[in-house]
């Protein structure tokens, strides 16, 4: 277990550092690339938390598809030159730091407190299920039985997003 914990903190530290770099870089392209690094670290955390299939999806969908879309739009609008900083002034910076710090402390306290109700099981039932059903099967079986209706509704959502994106990006209707 100590090796797992060590790996966890290594990836978590890298994720936090690259997220901080992402929100402070002046150039939007540098920002997007640091966000890609953050997403890779979060995928590694998913693997350590017994979610290998979701980790692969994270790399394919977030780092592979969504961030490419972001980079594509940044380059299409020719924003990669840097130019003047778009950070707020000292007053805005102080207010933002204060608000985000307060939120972070609150979330930290909530995460550290013991939840109400029955205590969580100490062993991980997910790892045992993955041994029996396989990494993909453990997600796929409930997805196509218990959660079939939400899964089908997702296709309607994606269709609406396709139509919306085409309509919005069209020059004239």
């Amino acid at each position, binding site marked *: 277990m100590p090796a797992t*914990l060590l790996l*966890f903190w290594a990836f*978590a530290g890298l994720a*936090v550092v690259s*997220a*901080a770099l*992402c*929100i402070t870089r002046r150039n*939007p392209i540098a*920002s*997007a690339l640091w*966000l890609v690094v*953050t997403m890779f670290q979060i995928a590694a*955390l998913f693997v350590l*938390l*017994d*979610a290998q*299939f*979701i980790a692969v*999806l*994270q790399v394919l969908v*977030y780092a592979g598809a969504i961030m490419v*879309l*972001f980079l594509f*739009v940044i380059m*299409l*609008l020719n*924003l990669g030159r840097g130019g003047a900083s*778009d*950070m*707020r002034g000292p007053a805005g910076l102080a207010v933002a730091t204060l*608000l*985000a*710090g307060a*939120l*972070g402390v609150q*979330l930290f306290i909530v*995460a550290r407190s013991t939840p109400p109700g029955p205590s*969580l*099981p*100490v062993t*991980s*039932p*997910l790892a045992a*299920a993955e041994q029996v059903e396989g990494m993909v099967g*453990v*997600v796929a079986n*409930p*997805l196509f039985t218990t*959660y079939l209706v*939400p899964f089908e509704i*997702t296709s309607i*959502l994606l269709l609406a*997003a396709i139509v*919306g*994106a*085409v309509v*919005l*990006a069209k*020059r004239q209707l």
Partner: protein
Amino acid sequence: MLLGPALAVSAVLFALGVAGVLVRRNAIVIFMCVELMLNAVNLTFIALAQTLGVAGQIFVFFVMAVAAAEAAVGLAIILAMFRHGRTVNLQNITLLKG
């Protein structure tokens, strides 16, 4: 178990995303910070799914689908805004100002 550390890390990542939204003025960077917040919440779901069953992982699947749809539509809106005013700086977008 990694539940406690994972929740703490996801709290820090979410706060960093909020800080980015509050600090930056570039619409695309703000949008990327929203994606960072979604990722932090996904980490919470995965950490709780390890002890409470696989439903959390399935919810992350749906969050990813919604995030993909949101990115496509949001970037199309930013593109339309840029075509209208030649800027993505939120200070210069004042269409609703009387």
